[in-house]
């Protein structure tokens, strides 16, 4: 039997009951997404790690198939559509900008930005929208400075970014037009950077293209666009998601306020606990017959990995549905796994740690001060607006 997917509802952060059924049932589910061919759905931790981390599964093969997906349009090109060795060549160029060491150098700047945003919120007076006044501007400012994008262009690329990650707002044609506009914008920035070299990632990538011939012009454009989009939307969603989850768990919130040294571990536990995705995507295609748990996946068949479910697999995690901020999990899959493990993981960790640190210390009585409006048509879940007081 093939079931319709995705399961998660958008008005909450709960993991849908269908995932628990899947975790209790042997084998994998057959699913049908709104667009594309049917697929297997991996929900168990061990299966997820196998599919994401084994070279017999390919992302590049998706381009030649009717990839299962939420959008009518297709997110073609880009580093997440590649396999080694092409993927390796591009990732090596950008990995250095996102190492733990480089990210630590950005921490004081991120903290300053966060403190400034909180001061502005306090000056404006409650209620304010946490998303618009804090959760978005923090990661946007950081990624703009790192990449070399003018932060005042945020209203422009916000629209393109929303559209890239939108599940149903756009027709396939509108989706392509949106991508063209984003690419043209990035091309303009690249032209500026060629004239005025900066100490930023875009300049480094331009040099890799112009002098090293290590990536094509289109790869350069798509890499910059991908970093800009991926560099803020997820973190901007997780900041309010983490605050909401902590408001739902007042004991955990109190522990963090009285002992901020628990925050880095709490961020790891929250990354495990909060199922960010509205549904899983980015199918992996078997390049040969591969056994995944009880299922023999035949060559050419796609598998979708439900990370949110795998992070709640009781075989791997003790009491998986309990938030245990003082017992951080090892090896959660919140950033994925394998060659496509989130490039910005260290950056996201640092931003989430600083966001919690600053919000909890400067706004010790942070609380909801109005109704949340939820994203309804996005790949990731989270509030569009979240009014808070303190």
């Amino acid at each position: 039997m093939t079931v319709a997917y995705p399961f998660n509802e958008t008005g909450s952060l709960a993991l849908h009951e269908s995932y628990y059924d899947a975790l209790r049932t042997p084998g994998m589910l057959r699913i049908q997404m709104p667009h594309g061919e049917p697929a297997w759905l991996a929900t168990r931790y061990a299966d997820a790690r196998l599919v994401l981390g084994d070279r017999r599964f390919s992302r590049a093969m998706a381009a030649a198939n009717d990839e299962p997906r939420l959008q009518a349009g297709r997110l073609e090109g880009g580093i997440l559509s590649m396999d080694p060795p092409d993927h390796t060549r591009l990732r090596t160029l950008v990995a250095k900008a996102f190492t733990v060491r480089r990210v630590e150098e950005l921490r004081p700047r991120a903290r300053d930005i966060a403190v400034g945003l909180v001061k502005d919120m306090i000056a404006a007076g409650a209620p304010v929208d946490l998303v618009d006044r804090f959760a978005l501007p923090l990661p946007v400012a950081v990624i703009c400075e790192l990449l070399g994008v003018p932060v005042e262009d945020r209203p422009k690329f916000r629209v393109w970014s929303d559209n890239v990650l939108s599940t149903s707002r756009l027709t396939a044609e509108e989706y392509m037009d949106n991508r063209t506009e984003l690419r043209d914008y990035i091309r303009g920035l690249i032209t500026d950077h060629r004239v005025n070299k900066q100490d930023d990632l875009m300049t480094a990538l331009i040099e890799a293209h112009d002098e090293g011939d290590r990536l094509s012009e289109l790869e350069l454009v798509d890499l910059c666009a991908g970093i800009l989009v991926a560099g803020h939307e997820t973190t901007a969603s997780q900041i309010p998601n983490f605050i909401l989850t902590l408001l739902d768990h007042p004991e955990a919130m109190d522990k963090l306020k009285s002992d901020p040294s628990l925050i880095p571990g709490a961020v790891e536990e929250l990354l495990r606990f909060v199922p960010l995705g509205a549904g899983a995507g980015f199918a992996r295609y078997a390049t040969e017959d591969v056994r995944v748990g009880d299922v023999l996946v035949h060559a050419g068949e796609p598998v979708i990995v439900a990370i949110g479910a795998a992070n709640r697999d009781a075989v791997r995690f003790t009491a998986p549905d309990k938030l245990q901020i003082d017992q951080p999990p090892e090896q959660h899959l919140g950033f994925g796994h394998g060659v496509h493990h989130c490039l910005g993981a260290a950056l996201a960790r640092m931003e989430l740690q600083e966001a919690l640190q600053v919000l909890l210390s400067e706004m010790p009585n942070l609380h909801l001060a109005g109704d949340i409006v939820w994203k309804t048509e996005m790949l990731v879940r989270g509030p569009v607006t979240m009014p808070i007081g303190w």
Partner: protein
Amino acid sequence: MTWQLRVDKSVCGATGMCAALAPELFVLDDWAEPVKPEIEPDEIALDAADQCPMQAITVLADGKEIGPRP
């Protein structure tokens, strides 16, 4: 010349990057480990060291550190 591979388990995050990129060189159980501590020179080892999100991999050429590349 031989190269030596090291994985610092205290910083390894089991992200699966190295074992997915270079299964001939790295194996992932609870943590990543080199399949063999000594290898013939192989560019992919340097790629793995460069790309490890936790910077847990070191590549040495006759004892001298050559990866991750600066």
